[in-house]
């Protein structure tokens, strides 16, 4: 039995937004435990609250009920101690900074020394395979490369937790496959804990050790599926029977949670 360290946990967490059209129950009664070294995907239809959950963990939203703990700290403390890196749906690179200046951004804010900055930037840019592009501006890079820069940036201060919100959603499938592989390698090598929001069933199954299926209105956890796939996964594992089984279970879980129902008018 391996020593399980709970890295992220939520207890009876609910989040309600007040809007002009009345309250929106984005999340209701979320109970979750994520252990060190896990790769957890969150999947569900729009409106199921998966992005909101990720943002709440990141202290970008505040829960209205219940609690969240990251590394045993409140989300705000975790944010202050920079316990995680966050990757958004879009690359959110600052257009007036070169690639290396963009990766340097979090290090400038934490006040790293010149030597530290240089070393971190070199390492993380190499991690995402973008050596040689340091002096380019974002508009000179393709979408996939921009996303890789934003991943490098998220790794900049060696956080052990990575929160990723549909990071590859805007990319084409071939680039996506490549990045999926790279992400797995990163995860394996550095024993990171990754929370990954996605729309894509194959992506969720390919990447994760645990898949959390969420249902909408109000956002709840419908089902959690543990994936028995081995840690080292070549791309063509996606055609194996085991893989297809898990994907089937995920699809069934989504169906059961009314994900495929018609949108209410």
């Amino acid at each position, binding site marked *: 039995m391996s020593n399980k360290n709970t890295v992220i946990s939520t207890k009876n967490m609910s989040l309600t937004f007040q809007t002009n059209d009345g309250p929106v129950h984005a999340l209701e009664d979320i109970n979750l435990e994520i252990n060190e070294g896990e790769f957890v995907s969150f999947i569900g239809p729009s409106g199921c609250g998966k992005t909101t959950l990720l943002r709440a963990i990141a202290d970008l939203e505040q829960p209205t009920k219940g609690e969240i703990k990251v590394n045993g700290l409140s989300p705000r403390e975790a944010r202050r101690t920079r316990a995680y890196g966050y990757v958004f749906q879009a690359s959110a690179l600052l257009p007036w900074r070169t690639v290396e200046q963009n990766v340097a*951004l979090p290090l400038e804010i934490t006040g790293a020394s010149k030597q530290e900055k240089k070393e971190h930037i070199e390492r993380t840019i190499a991690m995402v395979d973008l050596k040689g592009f340091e002096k380019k*501006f974002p508009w000179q890079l393709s979408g996939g490369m921009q996303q890789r820069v934003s991943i490098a940036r998220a790794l900049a201060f060696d956080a052990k937790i990575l929160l990723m919100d549909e990071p590859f959603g805007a990319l084409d499938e071939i680039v996506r496959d490549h990045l999926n592989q790279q992400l797995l390698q990163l995860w394996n090598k550095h024993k990171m804990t990754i929370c990954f929001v996605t729309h894509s069933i194959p992506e969720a199954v390919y990447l994760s050790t645990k898949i959390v299926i969420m249902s909408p209105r109000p956002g709840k956890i419908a089902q959690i599926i543990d994936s028995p796939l081995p840690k080292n996964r070549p791309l063509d594992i996606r055609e194996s029977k085991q893989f297809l089984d898990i994907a089937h279970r995920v699809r069934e879980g989504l169906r059961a949670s009314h994900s495929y129902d018609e949108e209410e008018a």
Partner: protein
Amino acid sequence: MERVFQSKIFAILVVLLAILVIWYGAAIKLNTPWQLGVYERAEITQWTKKQFIKDTLNQKRPVLPSAHQVFSEMYKTTFLKPINSKRSLVYHSWITLSATLLGFAIGTCFGILIAIGITHNRALDRSLMPWVIASQTIPILAIAPMIIVVLNAVGLSGLLPKALISTYLSFFPIVVGMVKGFRSPRNIQIDLMRTYYASPLQTFFKLRWPSALPYLFTSMKVAIAIALVGAIVGELPTGAVAGLGARLLSGSYYGQTVQIWSALFMAAALAAILIMIVSLVEKHVTKNMGAKS
């Protein structure tokens, strides 16, 4: 050859040429009545068309001066007069320009500070912003005479009162532009800074200020042009002594139309040069920020 016809410069030149032709045609038409009168009084009964046209285009106090009259007057008063002479256009231009630049500088700094306040403090935003907009409905140009007279009475005369008018006029486009600029970062970029636990100061210098620079330059172009107008109008009340506005006023008092037009053109040239300088600075700054050249 096709590229020449498609280019912007060619189109502008053609339009300018058309304007010149219309100008000369209008000058001839408008100056004709006076010229006929001149001939009558001088008892000239025979004249060739060529002579007539030449005379209409060279009257001393034409209704509409011709282009060469205006430009030769400008040339005379710019290059052929000593710079500190009261008749030198350079002297007058400098008087107006100094008030403009001072007012513009103060207005820009002031405007940026107000914009920073409005962006970071919601009470300031709610209370100040509507009044910033309303302040522009107070026709400050209209009360320029009063401001000048009042300030003179208190002992502030010369450059400063005019500069203050320019300040008032120029700070508005800067505030509006910079508030837009400081608010222009997308939500995703602001969230990014939050995940780094960046302080508002860090967020300002690393995100808001660079995002606002394009807006700064656009507003500076508007601000410097309107600061110039402010300085000119500020020169009207003090009995028209010095500056381009003074030249305009005295020209209109004494019926010196060529003087009016040359002062106007000089003001136009100044405006163009000032805006061009801002553009050059903008190009230089944005090049270092990875602007697509």
